[in-house]
């Protein structure tokens, strides 16, 4: 009866108004179907683009809606501080948080979303008929999945020997909500093996640098990442071998240390996340890094610079003098002129009192133009110059510098460290380190010959700290070296500057006390995820 009524009524209406019979058969116009995506190579490529585009980097982790993640990880190491008082940097510096309110908690979800994207692609790319496209995209996806697991592992995993697995949950295929999602952690070594296996497949499938658009994965990037993952895993020999596959294969050190990060697609870059104003800018914000990392005294229409990440005195002291000696033994060091005769990389990395920044000579002493008496002023007496594009006045252009994930200098450092641990000092290690020190803009003396394994280890570590400063290596390095506890339980130092007449007095002073309990060597899985997946347990005392 109902049906009859309906058909009569609708027939009436159709007769009267000539309406559509398939009124209820609407289809979305703003989305694609699965079939289309995996039959059209361009669509499949765009799907893989989605993984590249969403990969977290130092320039686009804008977390917790309050911009609480708007800082580089180096800001919570002994190298740096974060001037913006509201960021979650404070929590990381004081270790004062619970798994339920952990800073950077979004990373967990973000990385596993990327894992799925990669898994979906790997399952479906086989359907492509364009073989060349299939091969490259598959290689890229293996690389990207490995990259994601490498980040997951260094955030949430911990190398261990016990019976409790301390890796991260490994997922290698797209899951559905009906699958068993109670997934425990794998062991650290299982995850490392998985990453290395992905990278090996990627290296086989991927072309060399130059044969593919910049910004995409290459054979070199796959080996370079292998060297990093193996280094972290302390598989020294393998790490050194992986690094060797990159050394002398078309990558070279860019002559100017300062502009490595401002010169897009230069020969030193192995793998970077690329940005382009106005479509893709830092943090998805207008203005981006250059504004966030400008001192408060630089002003725009709505607001001034945000202060950003600043180097500490502890970090500044890690620079050698131009004679290759540390400041406490070098005759070149003059405490009244503490910025003279430093490793030239210092001037490219740090803004200090009297240096010129954006055409202005910095006055970082009380009463000077760059002390605004606002909370965002640097407490260390320094600001960060690295990455900064000084050409544009702040708030006039959105920052679009590329974030360099892996560059050639790192691979040389990976090699040096791994080779030293595996085999002890040899010439190839000196070659690698001295190459970095001989970069034309750096031009530092060679390492002294005849160092012991331990001495060399210390020099390599310091070289790594100085060369890769604020590139988000230090955060993980001091963890894997297990030295964070000794560096970060106590005061960190800044420089107090006073102007007396025409001279300045510089005093080292503790600006902040940090805290680093053992559990901070690893990040807690967000409590809500533990609640949903109790199979994965917290480790290290969280």
């Amino acid at each position, binding site marked *: 009866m*109902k049906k*009859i*009524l309906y058909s009569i009524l*609708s027939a*009436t*209406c159709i007769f*009267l*108004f000539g*309406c559509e019979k398939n*009124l*209820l058969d*609407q*289809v*979305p*116009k*703003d*989305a*694609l*179907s*699965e079939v289309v*995506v995996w039959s059209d190579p361009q669509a499949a490529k*765009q*799907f893989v*683009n*989605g993984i590249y*585009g*969403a990969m977290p980097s130092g320039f686009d982790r804008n977390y917790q809606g309050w911009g609480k993640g708007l800082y580089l990880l180096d800001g919570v190491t002994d190298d740096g501080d974060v001037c913006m*008082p509201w960021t*979650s940097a404070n*929590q990381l510096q004081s270790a*004062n948080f619970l798994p339920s309110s952990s800073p950077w908690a979004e990373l967990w*979800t973000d990385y*596993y*979303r990327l894992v*799925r994207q990669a898994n979906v692609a790997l399952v479906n790319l086989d359907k492509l008929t364009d073989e060349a496209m299939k091969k490259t995209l598959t290689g890229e996806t293996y690389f990207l999945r490995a990259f994601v697991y490498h980040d997951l592992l260094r955030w949430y995993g911990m190398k261990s020997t016990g019976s409790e697995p301390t890796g991260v949950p490994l997922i290698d295929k*797209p899951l559905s*909500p009906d699958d068993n*999602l109670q997934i425990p952690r794998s062991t650290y070594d299982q995850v490392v093996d998985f990453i290395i296996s992905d990278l090996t497949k990627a290296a086989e499938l991927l072309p060399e640098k130059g044969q593919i*658009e*910049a*910004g995409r994965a290459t054979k070199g990037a796959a080996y370079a990442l292998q060297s990093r993952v193996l280094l972290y895993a302390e598989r020294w020999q393998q790490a050194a071998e992986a690094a060797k596959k990159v050394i002398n294969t078309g990558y070279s050190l860019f002559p100017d240390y300062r502009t490595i990060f401002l010169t*897009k697609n230069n020969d030193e870059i192995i793998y970077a996340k*690329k940005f382009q104003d106005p*479509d893709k800018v830092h943090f998805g914000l207008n203005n981006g890094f250059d504004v966030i990392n400008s001192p408060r005294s630089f*002003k*725009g*229409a*709505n*607001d001034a610079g945000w202060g950003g990440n600043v180097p500490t005195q502890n970090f500044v002291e890690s620079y050698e003098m131009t004679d290759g000696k540390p400041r406490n033994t070098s005759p070149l060091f003059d405490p009244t002129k503490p910025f003279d005769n430093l490793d030239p990389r210092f001037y490219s990395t740090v803004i200090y009192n009297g240096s010129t920044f954006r055409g202005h000579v910095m006055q970082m002493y009380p*009463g000077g*133009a760059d002390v605004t*008496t*606002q909370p965002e002023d640097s407490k260390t007496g320094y600001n960060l110059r690295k990455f900064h594009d000084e050409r544009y*006045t702040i708030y*006039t*252009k959105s920052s679009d510098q590329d974030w360099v994930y892996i560059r050639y200098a790192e691979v040389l450092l990976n090699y040096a460290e791994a080779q030293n641990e595996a085999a002890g000092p040899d010439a190839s290690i000196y070659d690698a380190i001295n190459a970095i020190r001989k970069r034309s803009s750096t031009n530092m003396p060679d390492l002294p010959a005849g160092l012991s394994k331990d001495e060399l280890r210390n020099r390599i570590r310091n070289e790594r700290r100085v060369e890769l400063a604020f590139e988000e290596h230090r955060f993980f390095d001091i963890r894997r070296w297990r030295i964070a506890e000794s560096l970060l339980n106590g005061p960190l130092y800044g420089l107090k500057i006073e102007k007396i007449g025409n001279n300045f007095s510089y005093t080292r002073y503790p600006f902040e006390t940090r805290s680093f309990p053992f559990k901070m060597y690893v990040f807690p899985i967000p*409590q*809500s*995820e533990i609640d*949903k997946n109790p199979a994965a347990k917290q480790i290290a005392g969280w």
Partner: protein
Amino acid sequence: MLMMKLTAIFLLALCLNVSAKGFSQNISLSMENVSLEKVFKEIKRQTGYTFAYTKSLLQKAKQVTINISNAPIEKALDVCFHDQPIAYTIINKTVVIVNKKEAPAEKEQVSTPPPPIDVSGKVTNQKGEPLNGASITEKGTSNTTVTKEDGTFTITVSRPNAVLVITFIGYEKSEITVGSQTEFSIVMKTSPLAMNEVVVIGYGNQRSRDVSGSVSTVSTKQIASNPAPNLTNSLMGRTAGIIATQRAGEPGNDASNIFIRGVGTTGDASPVFVIDGIVRYSSDFAQLNPNEIQSVSILKDAASAAVFGVRGGNGVILITTKRGSAGKMQITYNANFGIQTRTRTIEFLNSYDYATLYNEALANEGKAPLYSQADLQKYKDQSDPDAYPSSDWNSIMNKNPMITQHDLSASGGSDKIRYATSFSYLNQDGIVPSNNFKRYNFRSNIDADVTRSTVLSFDLAGRSEATNNIVPTNIWQLIASTTPTKFPVRFSNGFYAGGPSYNVLPDNGYRKKKTGAFRGRLQLVQRIPFIEGLSVKAVGSFDKTLIDSKTWSYPVIPFYTRLPDGTFRKEPLPKSSLSQDHFDDQSITLETHINYEKRFGSNRITGLLLYTQTKQVWNDLNGYREGYAINIDEINFGPSANRNNGGYSGASGRRGVVGRINFSHSDKYTLETSFRADGSEQFAKGKRWGFFPSVSGSYVISQESFMKNITFLNFLKLRTSYGILGNDRIGAARFLYLQSYNPSGSAVFGNGDVQQAIVEGSLANPDVTWETVKKLDVGFDASFFSGKLTTTFDYFYDKRSDILGRRNASVPALLGVGLPVENFTKVDNRGIELTIGHQNAVSKNLRYTISGNVTYARNKVVFIDEPATTNPNLMRTGRPLGTEFGFQAIGLFQTQDEVDKAPTQIGNNRPGDIRYKDVNNDGKIDDNDRVPIGKANTPEIVYGFNGGLNFKNFELSFLLQGATNVNQWYRGEGIWPFFVGAGALKTNLDRWTPSNPNASEPRVLISIDNMNHHDLSSFWLKNSSYLKLRNVELAFNLPKALLEKTKAIQGLRFYVNCNNVYTWTKIKNFDPENGSDRGWAYPQLRIFNTGFNIQF
């Protein structure tokens, strides 16, 4: 057999295309050359009116031909008695036939008006007691008198066939035609709830006596007494069942959230808005000119809303617009002039207090002060305001922005064509400089009797809205977060420094939005001549909405940095840009109705069957360019670098079949059943059609003989209804049953090559369906003491299931993709509504009405997705939706000793910090100590108290409205000092210090290090209950005597009224209804308004 009959009916519908409203007093007749007696019989059958006459009188009469549809009885009688030697008088549902006096010829009527006739009489109630103060009005004029103490009156009417309208509070309106008689004895019948008034219900009208569902109405007079330009702000407190909260006050964007009987779903809980039978946007209601409205009905239960099926689950707000009636053109002009202020102003600290407090916070953290004594002194004495500013950012806002409104309407008509037209203009300034809202509304509703049985209605309506604003969308955020020390409002030389004062400069650009809405409706009602009571109606509506947004940023005023040496550096101007967006939306609804109405003795049956379908299509196109070299706000003048564009489109469709049968017996029993079968394209093929039935009944128990002895009780009706409704509004998400891949984001490769990215959409659920709501309503309507006291009570219980949810709380994020929506959440919502009204006439000159209403609606989550491992204290199941969880603050630590002995708190605590309760007594405060600490942000209890007083020519009315059982978080800049580099509030001064141990706020701190203040706790979840004097109006009606001298003016009314007059609440700094926990919302406005209304 039945099928064949139905087919025949539909074929008829096809041929003729019709309807008949024909309820209550309205009748439809189609008779040719019949005797008056026959006509009278038919009228009696349709209306229940009886006829008193002698046969001899009727013998004089001629036979008549009559053809009217849906007309008042007077009209039918006028036709019958036209050119007859006899006349009629209606007394209390009895038509008395009398001999006609010789009427003057028509020509004479035109040339010389007939002499006035003195009429006198006495008005009594059914017991024969005289009624003092009943008003007698000559219909269609302002000629009025009132009865004396003995119930007698005299009035001089202008013509012999004048109609007197007799009204008295608590009695049914009565009308008599003067005719030959000049002396009347009028018996008024008590009318407790105006039981014969017609109530607008879904797809029709009903006598309120026959309404068995829960429907409440809002008087248009009450709406008109509120100067708030947004109609959604005029409903709160006016009737039970409406829970409305106004979250912000931006002109043109200040609508309240409206929930009918609260919130019963985690999804979209807002009602649907139906204007003249067509489902329309809530903004179509919000931005309607109040003078266009004839009636507002709120359909609250299953029985009344079932005809809206899958969209009726949250209740329905029905609006009908005014239509014309035959008669002289009536013109009304209404003018309003008002000024506005904020209801609350957030009070910030000046620089001195800010800096002092900042130093204190540093000291609390063991750090050296940031501001020296010299700095503080400069902030205090403002001797160097350029270097040491103390900016009050509130001062950059307009103090008393204006609002004006003009309405002009005209209505009238002839026998064949009736019209109601109106035009209105609204101009409202905001408190943000250059912020303005303009609105034009027009409407023209025309009804034409095409044939004797056909009425064609043609409605055209539209509105044009234009808002203008400054470019930044976040000015309130900027004000909330900029310290007074950061920039001066202006340097002493007049330069701008940047910051809020620079951002509000209208010279540097604008943000405009224009909305053009056209609403057209065509309706044809055809009465079927040979089946009594049957009519067919065809409706077509065409809605078009165009929204154009344009944001032009072209900074021309520079800003400066003051250098330490006192010189100024001109900063480069920010980037110029133009972005434009065009959105258009079109919706076409087509309907066929079949209406049937018949009386069998004391039984009355009405039926409805209808088919409806709607198709909507929309389209968006936008463009952007930046780096304009010249000040011309056109896309084409922008440079080609970095230009950008985008767009999308879509279409949706739905279909429904509705049926309803209402049966009533001797005005005592009513039984109604209705259904709707709905097809929604939101769901997979085969899952699209839902069936939503309802049934309801009412019993007027006061009609029973055993109740007649209870003299104080005049009327008591018991009602109950039950039904199943749906809710298919699942946010903006569509096609949940299809797995989609969406363009989202981008990645950059090569030499700045920005490539599109595609991501997998949330997983599809092919079985997804609508929410189902089972609604029960039990209530009564009663009237006591001759209608002086009335009351309506309802108990309701909604059980809602199949609410869409995602298993985010139980499925680990390891899945890595948006979860499919599934129909699993269940929520119960129940409560009561009570309305009590009292009206009385103290004397001839003094009348008053008061009424109060209260609504209590509490929901409970019956099932929701949550992990099994969740701490039971944090379970949402069994608790109301929106329950807030956090730590329980139990005051502030007073001594270090207290801190040391207390369970381990979060951070390194000191005296002055918030102390949290160790709920599980494990000696430490952690996630397991989080418990429910408060209620949702939508109040559970709302109430209103309306009053009106008429004294001579003065009228006073007011509305008190309140809400309770409601909480609001305050966080960030909204309450914490120095949050994310922001300033501080005056209320922050009451912080804990050793000398202020009873402080309302903890000790001040800056960094999140060692701070436990920012955790979500009961400390910051505030009770946002309030009582507001929403509305007051004082009006003066010019005395009739004065008006009569003017001849032309029929009424003139002067009034002053005010909206949001005063608020009682514990919330500081903000209006308690405000929607932002951080002070980022546009403040609510208070309007002081004066105006006049003139009728010609």
